[in-house]
């Protein structure tokens, strides 16, 4: 028989190691589908590792991939901390990108030191406002935010497609549904020549630091954590739960919006309707792997980005479908979820005791 015994104290090293073990387990489990697809397993891992860390260029690609994941991971982790289930980071990313494009493609012309804060602010406001809708529907009308945020993702994507085929379409785009390019003043500069890594990464790291300080040291952080622990207890303690949810929604949406800004202004230079291959959803995995800690988000985002970049290059080299990356990401989520049991419980294997027959009736 297996028995769960609640743990009272968890060593921080153990809590820190678990998600890493979970991620590695998911990577190891990927051997099964790789072998099933006829790939040579050890060679495949070699390709994954080389593709992610093998050269300066590969590492730059990896960090460029990690940048949006840091933002969406932070967005999800802040929301989940308060048990506000924001699964809408994907949509918030797109409205953030749309807002950045709306003012960054020539509508306003100003020098970079004005333009860049402006598009960042616009993206944050757009993302935050979008998340405000499901948050208010939850707090005022009791509508489950999981479903509303998920459904809004589809609405937003259609809206972006509509704008890109209509009013925001680039007349010079050869008929492709894409926006006009961002002006050079509204572009986040690249950090190194001939590499795609850009200053969005620095903004992402700064955001992680700010969120870390906010959660640890500020009253807001305390209120957010208390609300997430136990809503009714928080209410009794006089914490304004509704306004905390609204704050969390705004912060979370704004962070996801930043992911969109960083992608259009730092990486792509213009907006298309496929700018995000599910960064919003992957943000959930990043946040869970990070144990909802802002610093952990950075590490987890780098790990997930390595899986994607590495699997891409493995896929090109060996012909194993690149959906293997999504598979590893999904398995990491399930593994880290299971690993959370080990933090909460000691798992003991106990032999079932034989009870004497007489005692049975009394029980």
């Amino acid at each position, binding site marked *: 028989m297996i028995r769960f015994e609640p743990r009272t104290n968890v060593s921080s090293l153990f809590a820190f190691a678990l998600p890493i073990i979970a991620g590695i387990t998911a990577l190891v489990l990927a051997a099964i*589908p790789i072998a099933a*697809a006829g790939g040579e397993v050890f060679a495949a891992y070699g390709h994954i590792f080389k593709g992610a860390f093998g050269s300066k260029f590969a590492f730059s690609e990896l960090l460029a991939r990690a940048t949006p994941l840091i933002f969406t991971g932070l967005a999800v982790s802040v929301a989940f901390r308060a048990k506000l289930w924001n699964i809408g980071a994907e949509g918030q990313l797109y409205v953030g990108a749309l807002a950045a494009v709306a003012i960054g493609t020539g509508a306003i012309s100003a020098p970079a030191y004005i333009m860049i804060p402006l598009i960042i602010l616009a993206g944050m406001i757009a993302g935050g406002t979008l998340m405000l809708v499901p948050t208010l529907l939850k707090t005022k009308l009791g509508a*489950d935010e999981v*479903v509303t945020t998920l459904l809004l993702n589809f609405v937003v994507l259609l809206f972006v497609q*509509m704008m890109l085929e209509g009013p925001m379409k680039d007349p010079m785009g050869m008929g492709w549904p894409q926006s006009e390019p961002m002006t050079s003043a509204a572009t986040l500069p690249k950090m190194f020549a001939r590499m795609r890594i850009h200053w969005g990464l620095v903004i992402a790291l700064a955001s992680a630091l700010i969120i870390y300080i906010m959660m640890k040291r500020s009253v807001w952080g305390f209120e957010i954590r208390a609300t997430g622990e136990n809503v009714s207890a928080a209410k009794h303690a006089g914490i304004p739960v509704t306004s905390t949810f609204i704050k969390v929604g705004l912060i979370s949406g704004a962070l996801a919006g930043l992911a969109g800004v960083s992608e259009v202004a730092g990486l792509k230079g213009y907006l298309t309707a496929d700018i995000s291959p599910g960064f919003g959803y992957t943000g959930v995995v990043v946040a869970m792997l990070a144990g909802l800690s802002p610093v952990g988000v950075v590490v987890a985002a780098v790990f997930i980005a390595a899986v994607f970049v590495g699997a891409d290059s493995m896929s090109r080299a060996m*012909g194993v479908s690149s959906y293997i990356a999504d*598979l590893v*990401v999904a398995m990491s989520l*399930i593994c880290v979820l299971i690993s959370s049991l080990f933090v909460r419980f000691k798992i003991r294997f106990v032999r079932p005791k034989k009870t004497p027959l007489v005692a049975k009736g009394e029980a």
Partner: protein
Amino acid sequence: MEYIDILLSANFWAAAIRIATPLIFGVLGALVCERAGVLNLGIEGIFVVGAMCGWMAVWLGAGLWGGILVAALAGAFFGLLHGILTVPLGLSQHVSGLGITMFATSVSYFTYRTALPKVSSPPRIEAFQPLDIPVLSDLPFIGPALFQQTSMTFLALAMVLLVSYVLYRTPLGLAIRAVGDNPSAVEAQGLSVFVLRIGAIMAGSALMALGGAFLTMSAFDAFFFGMINGRGWICIALVVFASWRPGKALLGALLFGAFDAFQIRLQNEVGAVIPSQVFLMIPYLLSIVALVLVARKADYPRALLQPYFRGQR
């Protein structure tokens, strides 16, 4: 008046029922899980699995009903996984469900790509054809509107009857409803909360997978990436709208199908003025509206989202 013409055409009603069919399966599936106290956000991925496995089985020569069986079993398998994570292990139903959706989706996509590495146009199967029921299908208007559907639509309707019979007329149904409201009372009756909940999740997930299978085996005859497109999430909204009752679930799905079919026809009428995306947004917005309308007075199964550990109150 073109709008009245739309409502008066048999074709419109046939389309409404066709659009409703996968949702009937999906809402019923979600309903069975939630009645037992477990939210199953794996639904979106289980739709994908059902669509892929059902299609793949037929493509490999299993026959249409063989495909249905394979889809249902695949759905039940992912249901079992969700069940183990959420029932005995008591892990977050939200996160586990999302994990199942991601896992099931990526497994399906990976399998499809591995089996068919380089196909430009997806291979087709001989899908279910509309039935020709003697007398009924030949009735004027009613025939083409209601009785020229495929067997899967009739299967969906049969499932509504079956689920509502089991839930309300059998001891098993009583136990399932009780386990979603008050698991310790069920345990006190000497029944196993684990078995009931996991069984309900597996059955519900099998139903969800049939919804996916309908898309590749009846509505279309091939599998496409991204073809589920949020249908699973819509079902999660509709089940609240249906207040967890099979009859209302059918009604909700049909109402939704009618709106969607109307929207498609409207697109043909005024598509030149209004971008098509506006119409395509309607189903999602409608689901949100449906959810918001009933949210305040929704009577959630009382133990929904609450893990149950033996000997704990």
